[in-house]
């Protein structure tokens, strides 16, 4: 049990800090939320800068253009980039944090050579085509079907909630290749280019009023068989690998960003004047801030445990489900506290940065956190996973 960083890890952190110190001031202002062309340029441009400086794919093998270092250095990378306010991974989320890691473990050498370096250079946006209108929590019941026709799968069906579907170049796509087999045994994991004929993407507006996710329709889309990752009908197992990354370590910069937000909230509380004192003088508010900090510190410690497990075994452990479940609830409490502090200021969504009146993006954040207990498996499903897979309680069905 050792949280000390090695001399090498410390040197890595120092170099990274120096580099960030040089490059961040040259970036300019982030693009408007609804300008997708500019957003793509911004996210991919940042990824390219990381690549050129040797900071892309920290824990990806060097043969694919990664840095080939440990999950711990990846953790340090996320910590420093978040702390110094570098751009968030944005639309590179799927490629960097779960599609890429899945390909590293499961794909063929050709697939790896084709996609992994391109992901690292910021040349490919990926999306995740798992959920369907009738297969959300019960993902294994998905019905988008793929019929083998020579060297191709012919895919027909519909996906939904596909984040960044309208800007993506590739999709990690789950399809049904065997209609007769039990539901978990007839699924296949495919790499689907999003520009194939027969794909139609329709953005969906979220509660926050933006279009972060889409419906994707497939009408006899021909996907080469060579795009299959893992065996035919073995896609459920591959999807579980994807989930272990998505739930295990993909939330690290989220958590760090949230800690920054809590510090801003404390600042805000000290500045908000009411009845001759400040919000900070309110015992309940101040203690809740201390309490939230204790919980975030604990989640950060839990993250380090999950990363240490990944370091030992190559995959994040089941602590990821615990993290996601707990984090969603704590973050909702923080958003509620912001509202209690802001009082009538909570009526207004900040444009751009925000100020003391509106509390930065805290009002928008209260909307965003609603998705934390839904996306990547709802909290109810996480509780089933913990109850059944970790605690060994009997399955429902």
């Amino acid at each position, binding site marked *: *049990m050792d949280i000390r960083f090695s001399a090498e890890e410390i040197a890595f952190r120092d170099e990274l800090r120096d580099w960030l110190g040089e490059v961040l001031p040259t970036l300019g202002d982030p693009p408007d939320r609804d300008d997708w062309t500019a957003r793509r340029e911004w996210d991919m441009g940042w990824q390219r800068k990381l690549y050129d400086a040797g900071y892309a794919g920290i824990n990806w093998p060097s043969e694919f253009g990664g840095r080939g270092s440990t999950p711990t250095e990846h953790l340090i990378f996320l910590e420093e980039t978040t702390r110094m306010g570098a751009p968030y991974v944005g639309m590179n989320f799927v490629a960097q944090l779960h599609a890429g890691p899945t390909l590293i473990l499961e794909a063929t050498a050709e697939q790896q050579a084709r996609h992994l370096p391109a992901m690292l250079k910021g040349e490919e946006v990926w999306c995740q085509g798992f959920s369907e209108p009738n297969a959300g929590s019960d993902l294994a019941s998905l019905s988008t079907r793929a019929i083998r026709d020579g060297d191709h799968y012919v895919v027909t069906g519909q996906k939904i909630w596909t984040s960044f579907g309208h800007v993506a170049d590739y999709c990690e796509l789950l399809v049904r290749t065997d209609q007769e087999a039990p539901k978990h045994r007839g699924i296949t994991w495919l790499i689907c280019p999003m520009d194939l004929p027969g794909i139609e993407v329709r953005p969906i507006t979220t509660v926050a009023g933006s279009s972060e996710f889409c419906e994707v329709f497939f009408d006899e889309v021909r996907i080469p068989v060579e795009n299959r990752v893992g065996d035919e009908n073995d896609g459920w197992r591959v999807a579980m690998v994807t989930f272990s990354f998505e739930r295990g370590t993909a939330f690290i910069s989220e958590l760090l960003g949230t800690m920054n937000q809590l510090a801003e909230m404390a600042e805000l509380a000290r500045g908000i004047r009411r009845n001759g004192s400040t919000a900070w003088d309110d015992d309940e508010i101040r203690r809740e801030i*201390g309490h939230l*900090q204790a919980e975030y510190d*604990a989640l950060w410690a839990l993250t380090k445990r999950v990363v240490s497990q990944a370091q030992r075994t190559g995959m994040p452990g089941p602590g990821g489900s*615990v993290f996601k479940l707990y984090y969603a609830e704590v973050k909702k409490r923080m958003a509620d506290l912001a509202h209690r502090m802001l009082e009538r200021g909570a009526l207004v969504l900040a444009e751009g940065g925000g100020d003391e009146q509106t509390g930065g993006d805290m009002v928008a954040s209260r909307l965003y956190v609603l998705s934390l207990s839904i996306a990547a498996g709802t909290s109810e499903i996480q509780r089933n996973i913990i109850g059944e897979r970790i*605690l060994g309680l009997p399955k429902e069905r």
Partner: protein
Amino acid sequence: MDFELTDDQVALCDGIRDLCQGRFDIDTVRGLADCGGVDRQLWGELVDTGVFSLVVPEEDGGVGLGWAEAGLVFEQLGRALVPGPLVGTLLAAGVTDDAVVGLIERTDGSALVEYPDVLDALLVLDGDGVWRVDAAELSFELAQSVDPLTPVGRVAELPQGEEVGGCYGWVNRAVFLCSALQVGLATGARELAVAYAQERQQFGKPIGQFQAVKHKCADMYSREEVARAALYYASCVLDAPELADEDRAVSGARILAAEAADHNGKDCVQVHGGMGFTWEIDAHLYLKRAWALTPCFGSLDEHAERIAAMV
């Protein structure tokens, strides 16, 4: 960085768990209520195993391990509901030669003292230092304790005692050890609830198949794991104080461990239904011990304040 347990640490946990299962089975533990919480013979086995001399350097006759190991051992003791003034006795090792030592903070003249019948000495912390009060000087009246395994005496006038050291670091270490016991209690309560959820049948199936019960068990596990991460982190900081702020790490572990033990104790009662409200089922013992340990060395509000001041 490798935040997982080393092989030695895993072996240490297993060893203490085996000791607890062999010598402190639940009937034995319950029986200790009749002798003030400590049986000298059994206590001697804890002493011989090195439970209290864990952090004493080897050249001084101790085991020479760190707070990480002390936390792991105390977690196992909490999980097994082992009673007695464990925290005081560990901290006193190397300071006094007493075998059974209580520890409290001096507030005003009067005090509540845990395990008063069995102490050799009571150590008292105050702003000036650490003071040893010989058990013979303590006059107390037994009070009705919330926890049958934490007898409490009411002391009208706490003697000053003799100074035995400066109190730097004592409070944090005491808070840390209480937290470790409570993480263990949270685990014990969760294990008991899960076992019952697997075995008890209603409506023709195990109650653990109902989500209301299954999800409660999942929440118990999550709380416990998050608290455990905070505890391990605090232990690493106590072992290497240059790494991070000790107060913040310890207070954080304190809040999460106390809440995990409290909530898991309550949920354990709930999962047992009517049985949960009986003396016979152990659920109440976890909850009561959690409650007995929470008001030690600062309230949770004080710990939250301590952290808030650093945000």
